[in-house]
Every structure is written in C-alpha cells, then in structure tokens.
C-alpha cells in the first residue's frame, strides 16, 4: 500500500520536475557560475576570474545608464499606472447609492472594464509594433491626434533621446492601467457598505469618502498592484528590443538592464559579463520582493498588535467601569 503510494508519487513527479529543473533551474545556476568567469565567444579557455566582471561594471557607462533608466521607469511607471487605475476604478463606482446598500457601478461599467482590459491580452510584439506606428513622426496616430488639437510642435517620440524613454514609459502605462482597474474595482466592491452609509449620514463628500474609507480599506490590494507594476517596469526588455531605435537608443537613452544582458550575450557574445549583469538585475528584483514582503508582514504584525492593544484597552475600560460602579 505504502510502496504503491510512493511509486506513484515518484513516477508522477519524475518527468515534470526533471524537465523543469533542467530547463529553468539549471540555466539559472549556470548563469550565476558564468558570472565569475571571462567566458566569451571563440575563447578556447574559460577562466575563473572571481569578481572581475562585477568590478568592470563599476566603470561601464552603459551599465550605469541602463540602471539609471531602470530607476526612472520603476519610479514613474508603477506610480502613474496605479494612480490612473485607482482614479478610474473609483469613477466606475459612481452610479450613486444602491438600493441594496453599497455603491452602484457607473453606467456602462461592464463595457468600460472590457475595453480597458484589452491591451492586457495583446502580445508584446503586437504592442511594440503598434506603438512604433503610433509614434511615427510622418504618419503616426499620436501626432495626428495632437495635430487635430492644434499642437504642431512635436518631438521625435522615439528618435529624440530626451523623449524616447518617456515614450517607452507611456506604452507601459497604456498597457497596464486596465489590469489594475479591474483588480482595484473588484477590491472596492468588497468594501463594507455600512462604512459608506455612515459617511453619508455624516455628509462626507465623495472625495473624502474615497480618501478616508475606500483607500484605507483596499490598501493591501493597492500595494499588490504596485508590486506587480514594479516588476513589469523592471523587465521591459522585449518592449525596448522591438520598439526603440538601436535598440536601446538613441544614445542609450532607452537602454535597460534586461536588454543590456540580452545584447551582451546574443550580439556581443560576452557570456561571462552578460551573466554578471543578469545576476545584478536578479539581486535587485529579489531584494525588492523580499523588501516588500517584509513590509507587508511587518504591517500585519502591527495590525495584530494594535488589535490586541485595543482589546486590552477595552477590557481594562470594562473592568475599571465595573470598579467605578462598585
């Protein structure tokens, strides 16, 4: 009986786990190992060089430029995306007070959710090529739209090094907002309707209701959305590869770490150095994940502690009340 169980477990897991380890886990381990070597194409000797690749990064202008661009993207894209999404999700709940309590969805809410979500199902290749045409200086949609508002002084969206990275960010925001609208809107629908009723009785304005009831109630979901948007903005490699001039240009203005790793490995065949930069990108990603999970855990702890304190205070009040009564 027991033997049969173990035979089944082992047989069932054998193929999937072996394939998974071979095709995903093992390459990661290899990459970390390569990052300490001087492996380059057609180099017959591969030597262990310790931290040399990591020291080389310190003097690599392209690396710093890419890191700087990544910081720009992760600082702005998630913030803008989530703020727009929060705003639209709130607008979707403005159908007035519902007969069954809580807030009624705005007229056409279902339609808006479907439309907003569309970009989420497009491939990165389609998205990038579409936006190449939208940003096209000669016959692009963006200039045509701006032109119809009387704006004629356009920058070269992708060809001007001052604007190119912002254009990449606009695509990230455009594509991301809908996903977070749907998630945040669902979270808002779950807020206790009693809270709004109390606020209505107090005559609180809609904006105050949003700031003091909605936002605090869905704080955890907002954080999750922000983490998601952060990880997507940190990657951005496929988008840069198809959309931008160079790619990564002009003048490295859209170079990001992910694309730098790819081009070092597959265009310049500097395998050791590419791996080292990949490891740095991985460390940044993992540090961020650990950091955010620590914060949320800390907050959970705090919340629990606060609850405990409140309970203790209540008990203390109750007993002191008794004493006074006695």
């Amino acid at each position: 009986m027991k033997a049969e169980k173990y035979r089944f477990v082992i047989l069932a897991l054998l193929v999937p786990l072996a394939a998974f380890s071979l095709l995903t886990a093992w390459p990661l381990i290899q990459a970390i190992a390569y990052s300490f070597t001087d492996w380059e194409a057609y180099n017959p000797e591969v030597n262990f060089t310790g931290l040399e690749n990591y020291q080389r990064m310190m003097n690599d202008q392209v690396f710093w430029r890419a890191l700087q661009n990544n910081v720009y993207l992760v600082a702005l894209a998630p913030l803008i995306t989530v703020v727009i999404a929060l705003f639209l999700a709130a607008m979707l709940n403005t159908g007035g007070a519902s007969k069954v309590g809580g807030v009624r969805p705005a007229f056409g809410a279902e339609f808006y959710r479907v439309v907003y979500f569309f970009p989420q199902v497009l491939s990165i290749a389609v998205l990038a090529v579409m936006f190449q045409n939208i940003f096209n200086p000669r016959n692009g949609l963006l200039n045509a739209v701006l032109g119809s508002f009387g704006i004629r002084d356009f920058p070269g969206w992708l060809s001007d090094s001052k604007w190119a990275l912002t254009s990449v960010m606009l695509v990230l925001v455009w594509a991301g907002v809908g996903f977070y609208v749907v998630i945040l809107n669902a979270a808002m629908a779950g807020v206790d309707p009693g809270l709004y009723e109390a606020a209505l009785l107090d005559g609180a304005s809609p904006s105050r209701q949003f700031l003091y009831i909605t936002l605090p109630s869905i704080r955890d979901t907002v954080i999750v959305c922000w983490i998601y948007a952060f990880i997507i903005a940190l990657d951005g490699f496929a988008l840069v590869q198809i959309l931008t001039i160079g790619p990564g240009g002009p003048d490295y203005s859209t170079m990001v770490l992910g694309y730098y790793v790819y081009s070092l490995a597959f265009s310049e065949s500097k395998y050791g150095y590419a791996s080292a930069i990949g490891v740095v990108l991985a460390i940044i990603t993992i540090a961020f994940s650990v950091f955010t999970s620590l914060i949320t855990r800390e907050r959970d702890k705090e919340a629990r502690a606060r609850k405990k304190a409140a309970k203790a205070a209540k008990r203390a009040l109750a007993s002191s009340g008794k004493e006074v009564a006695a």
Partner: protein
Amino acid sequence: MSHLSVPSSTDAVVGTASPARARTGIAIAPQSKGQLIVSRVLRILAQLFLVVWALVVGVPLVWTLYSSLKTGEEILTQPWALPAVPQWDNFRRAWVTAEFQNFFINTVIVVAIGLTITLILSSLVAFVLSKFEFAGRNAIRILFIIVMTFPGVLALMPLFFMLQQLGMLNSLWGLAIVYGVGGLPFSVFFLAAFFSAIPGELMDAARVDGCSYWSTFFRIMLPLAKPGLISVGIFQFMGMWNQYILPLIMISDKKNYVLGLGVARLAVDQGYAGDWGAMFAGIVIAMLPVLIVYIIFQRRIQAGMIAGAVKN
C-alpha cells in the same frame, strides 16, 4: 463546481443584501436636494473621465484595425482617414507574400503541443502536491517560487546553449516543450487550489473500489478539476500565443517563425519594402485570435486574474 470559482461581484452584493437593506433606508433619507445635484454632476464628470480613457485605449486599436484596410498611400498621407475602398488585398499579401500563413500554422502547432504538455504535467504535479503527504513536498513548492522570482533574461543564454546541445533549437517541438515546461509554476499553483478543494473521501472511495492511483487521477480527479483546467488553459493559450522572447532566441529559420517573431520582423522589413498596408494586416492577423478568445471568455479571464493577483 461553481463554489470553486471566484465569486462574482453580483454574488458579493446579493450576499450582503439583507442586512444592508435594513440600514440603507435610513442612510438614503437625509440626502438633501443639494447632495442629489452634486451626485448627478459627479456622475456626469465620472462618465466623462471613463469615456476619455476608453478612447485612449480604444482609438489606437480601432485605428490599427482600419489602417489594415487602407492603401499605403492613404496610410502615409492621411493617418486619420478611413479607407476609401477597403483593401482586402493587404491581408492576402500579409498572409501569402509575408508568409503569415506559415507563422500562423506554426503558432497553432506550438501552442497546441505546449498547452497539452503543460496541462498534463501541471495537473499531475498539482494533484500529487495537494493530495499526498511526503518528504520534500515543500521543497518542490519552494523550487517553483524561487525560479519564478528570478528574472528570466538571466537564464536565456545558458538555456540557449543547452537547447543547442539537445538539438532543440530551430524546432517547433523544442519550442513547444520549453513553453510547456515554462508554464508549470503558474499552472501548478493555480490547479493545486482546485485539487485541494476536491474532498479526499472521493479518492479514498475510488481506492477502496480497487482503482490504482493513476486511474483515480485520470478518471476521477481530472474530470472534477475541469473548470480549473479550462481557466489555466485559457491563460496559457494567451501567454503562449503571445510569446516573443523564447522564439527570438530559439528560432532563426524563417520557415519556423511564430506570429510574434513574424510581426516584429515585418515591422523591420516594411521599412525597406514600404508595404504599410500588409504590415497593419499582419498585426491584425496576430492579435485577432487572442482578442476573440478574450471577448468570449472575458469574465472568466478577469476573475482568474483577480484571484491570481490577490493570492500572490
């Protein structure tokens, strides 16, 4: 099995209906005329903002759709205008001349094989992880989580050389296997939730009746997990259909291109050939299947994504 799916927002509203209704009678009453006007103005303003974003998202898509029916001349000189005469020939040129028929068929083959692999393997792993106690069970979960946390670009180069040694480069089978195995962590976690919700007694009963573990899995568990398999299948379909990076490193021979590569390549070629109409038609061919799947299953897709995002 509806209790397994994510409760829709209507369920949530109905669930809170009775206690809320009692209170709402009081809550609505003190709304003055001024408040009513404010809320009406607010509603109109809200519609305005909602329409603006719908246009921001919708116009580029609609523009792409109708540009695919314009002549190259029209595309260059009148970016806004609708096509004077729909140029269906754009689609023929994209389909035949630009070889999108091959890319399309290749994509269908790779996605079909990749989906089959991922669904079979992930449901097996999910079943074992959620219904059996054994040493190393947690280690497997941790392995999946660790691999998911790493940025994929780090593994690309070693993966490339390994696939080269295995003879899996430039082959649709190779691509399908990498898709299928790469889809495992997400599918396993998604399906494990479904299997843990199936009562263990069902498995015990089947065992008493003399079913082997394998036939218990195939004949009892898989049919019960069907809603989960469909959801995972839809997600993986969209993910695999839209793949770009893996084919980029694995496929160099144009006859084995998939749609993602074809679209990116067409955008580059179009600069030389100047066939703008065919390029827009190519974009439409690549995005139409996922758009159709999305429109059919949009409720399920949104519900699943919400569940996934909130759980993680």
